């Protein structure tokens, strides 16, 4: 599995006229497991931690690297390694039809239009969306949209997939479907989630609370720590 390293990485954001707010305290982690879960309350810093991993957020101090590549200095290379799936697929799907959205992902990698179309159709078929290739992205169900967004990420063959609360907007059946797809991936998965059933399927779970990683261990220990925080 790839190695993700955070070395005293922190993120602070300026507050107009009120100095700065720490959204992630200096954090040191080495992530090598295949399935890594990140749980915590809203606003705790989970998404900031996830966004550090492909350079969507830059560390204010410290360093983040994936496979030895620095997310700031080698941002483009890191983004080729790390695919990112957002909570709301509507923000991620920008083309009118499913096949065109996958083709958008492939634009820089496959120059020839015919080859690009064939590759996009393969990606859709692999994700159970071949029948929707020419459908509008707006006509899909929430679960299908999230699977399409994930397919757009997987089209680029990343070695790591970071998914930031990908099931938050989904019903139970679609949560299971998207969850099964994510846990069936060959890639390393970093899954930010509120769904403790999904977290329990990970190999290692981090608990983030008040901008700090407060627990890091097996799913059962971390989930117990988190529920303790919630019940406190």
């Amino acid at each position: 599995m790839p190695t993700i390293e955070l070395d005293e990485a922190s993120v602070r954001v300026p507050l107009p006229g009120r100095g700065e707010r720490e959204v992630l305290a200096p954090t040191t982690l080495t992530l090598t497991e295949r399935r890594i879960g990140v749980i915590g309350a809203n606003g705790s810093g989970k998404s900031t931690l996830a966004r550090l991993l492909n350079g969507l957020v830059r560390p204010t101090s410290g360093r983040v690297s994936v496979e030895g590549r620095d997310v700031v200095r080698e941002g483009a290379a890191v983004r080729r390694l790390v695919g990112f799936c957002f909570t709301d697929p509507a923000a991620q799907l920008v083309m009118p039809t499913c096949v065109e959205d996958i083709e958008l992902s492939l634009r820089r990698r496959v120059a020839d239009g015919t080859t690009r179309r064939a590759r996009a159709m393969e990606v859709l078929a692999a994700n159970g969306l071949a029948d929707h290739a020419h459908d509008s992205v707006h006509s899909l169900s929430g679960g299908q949209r999230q699977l399409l967004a994930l397919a757009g990420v997987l089209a680029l063959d990343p070695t790591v997939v970071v998914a930031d609360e990908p099931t938050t907007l989904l019903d139970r059946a679609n949560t299971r479907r998207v969850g099964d797809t994510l846990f069936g991936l060959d890639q390393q998965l970093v899954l930010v989630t509120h769904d403790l059933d999904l977290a329990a399927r990970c190999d290692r779970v981090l608990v983030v609370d008040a901008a700090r990683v407060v627990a890091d261990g097996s799913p059962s220990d971390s989930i117990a720590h988190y529920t303790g925080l919630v019940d406190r």
Partner: protein
Amino acid sequence: MTDLMAGLHQPGDTVLHRLPVGAKVLGLAGLSLAIVLVRDVRAAPAFLAVTLLLAALARVPARSVWRAARGVLLIAVVASLLQWWWYGGAKAAETFLDLLSLGLAALALTATTEVNQMVDALARWARPLRVLGIDPDRVGLTVALTIGALPGTIAIARETRDAARARGLDRNPRAYLSPFVIRVVARAHESGDALHARGIGDD
């Protein structure tokens, strides 16, 4: 959301589908210029017949033709009423038919041309701009994203209007416009992040 898809590409293998994008865009430009420049009420039905023929050639479903026509209809009626008031019935009829023809001509292009084909063509045509430091691929992508953003923006407008209504504030423009603008800007940021995460614009 279905009425937002009126101008969506319809897969097919008609003559219009097979035509190169450049020929279609030039054809649309030529036809549009002719519709606008020929100031004769007798020509207007002929132009409408040509555009209906194009829609039929492209095998655009009648429902899509109606939706596209409906979108233009309101503008056409308002513009025609003004023309009728200022210049009389003949001018109003010409304006009404010409606007419908322009809408249908555009539909024939969008129904037979995928956005990605358009992006590829625009990127090709924008290649000379490279000497000015402009990335031709980004030119094409910008147009595609603009087209792609329209349904999402309309959906946000509807949701914001419904939210204002639910709070009994449907007659207060601030209750509608402020959250609408904020949500559109937020969505633009999210889409920017999503494109960035997909590595678009990295090279």
